[in-house]
């Protein structure tokens, strides 16, 4: 009986020592676990705050929060972690969208840069062309100035020539007037001469447009009497046309021209109607 009791007592001491050792180990584990859990809780809260916090000017705040009490309870910890995961998903989605936009923007930027490079090249080309054109313009302006000087000189010469032409025209007009006067005088003198010489060849020198009227018709002796004579320029042997209104009806030859009257023979070959007093004669 004593041996059995002794065995149990020894076993009891051994078990107590083992219990103390196990308790010591568990204490260390609990401390470590507690520290780990606190660290994790703080990390989760920090991550949640970071995820929900805004960052001006691009990132907006998310109105969703993690409950620290819920995080410390194993029954609600999962829900809080799900909230954290949702926050992370939202931010990840925003990041994805932003990356996508960034990619598009970079593509557009590359395209725009290429267009800009092309535009710069075109601009350089255009500037060179402008410089070349400016040089040509300057050259042309110089040539134009020279031509304008020449034009000015030519215009001056033209003005002088015009004045000369005007002078010449005036002289010509004066000469023409003198010529007309001389011709008229010559014609008058020829008529006078024909009157004195009774030259039938100079009859044609009668004044153009000389007209008169038949005042008497004698069909028996085949002559008429006119109301114009030598004072009006009529000469002997001249032929005058006879008309009635717009109709030509015959021709007469002056046989005896007096001062203000004349006798003319009727040219029967020309007569298309009997002549009457009042018919007009025209040279």
């Amino acid at each position, binding site marked *: *009986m004593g041996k*059995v*009791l002794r065995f*149990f*007592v020894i*076993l*009891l001491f051994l*078990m*107590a020592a*083992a*219990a103390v050792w*196990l*308790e010591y*180990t*568990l204490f260390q*584990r609990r401390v470590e*676990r507690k520290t780990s859990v606190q660290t994790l809780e703080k990390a989760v809260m920090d991550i949640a705050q970071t995820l929900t916090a805004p960052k001006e000017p691009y990132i907006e705040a998310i109105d969703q929060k993690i409950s620290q009490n819920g995080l410390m309870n*194993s029954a609600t*910890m*999962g*829900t809080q*972690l*799900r909230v954290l995961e949702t926050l992370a998903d939202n931010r990840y989605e925003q990041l994805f969208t932003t990356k996508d936009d960034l990619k598009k923007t970079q593509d557009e930027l590359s395209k725009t840069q290429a267009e800009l490079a092309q535009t710069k090249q075109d601009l350089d080309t255009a500037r060179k062309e402008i410089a070349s054109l400016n040089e040509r313009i300057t050259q042309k302006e110089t040539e134009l100035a020279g031509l304008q000087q020449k034009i000015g000189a030519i215009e001056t010469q033209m003005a002088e020539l015009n004045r000369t032409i005007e002078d010449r025209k005036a002289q010509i007009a004066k000469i023409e007037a003198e010529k007309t006067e001389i011709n008229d005088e010559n014609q008058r003198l020829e008529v006078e001469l024909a009157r004195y010489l009774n030259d039938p060849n100079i009859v044609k020198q009668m004044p153009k447009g000389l007209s008169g009227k038949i005042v008497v018709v004698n069909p028996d002796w085949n002559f008429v009497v006119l109301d114009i004579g030598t004072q009006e320029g009529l000469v002997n042997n001249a032929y005058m046309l006879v008309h009635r209104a717009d109709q030509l009806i015959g021709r007469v030859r002056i046989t005896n021209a007096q001062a203000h009257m004349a006798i003319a023979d009727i040219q029967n070959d020309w007569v298309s109607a009997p002549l009457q007093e009042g018919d007009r004669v025209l040279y």
Partner: protein
Amino acid sequence: MFFIRLMGILVVLATLCFGGQITLQVLELKSYEAPPSVWPPK
């Protein structure tokens, strides 16, 4: 004689209690090595 029997019974009971405590402590120690997972939540 009675006192010795009583002591024996107490020792046996104490041994059983220590044994239970040690068992529980070992189970707890084991649980630290593979803690129950709460993630993902259902």
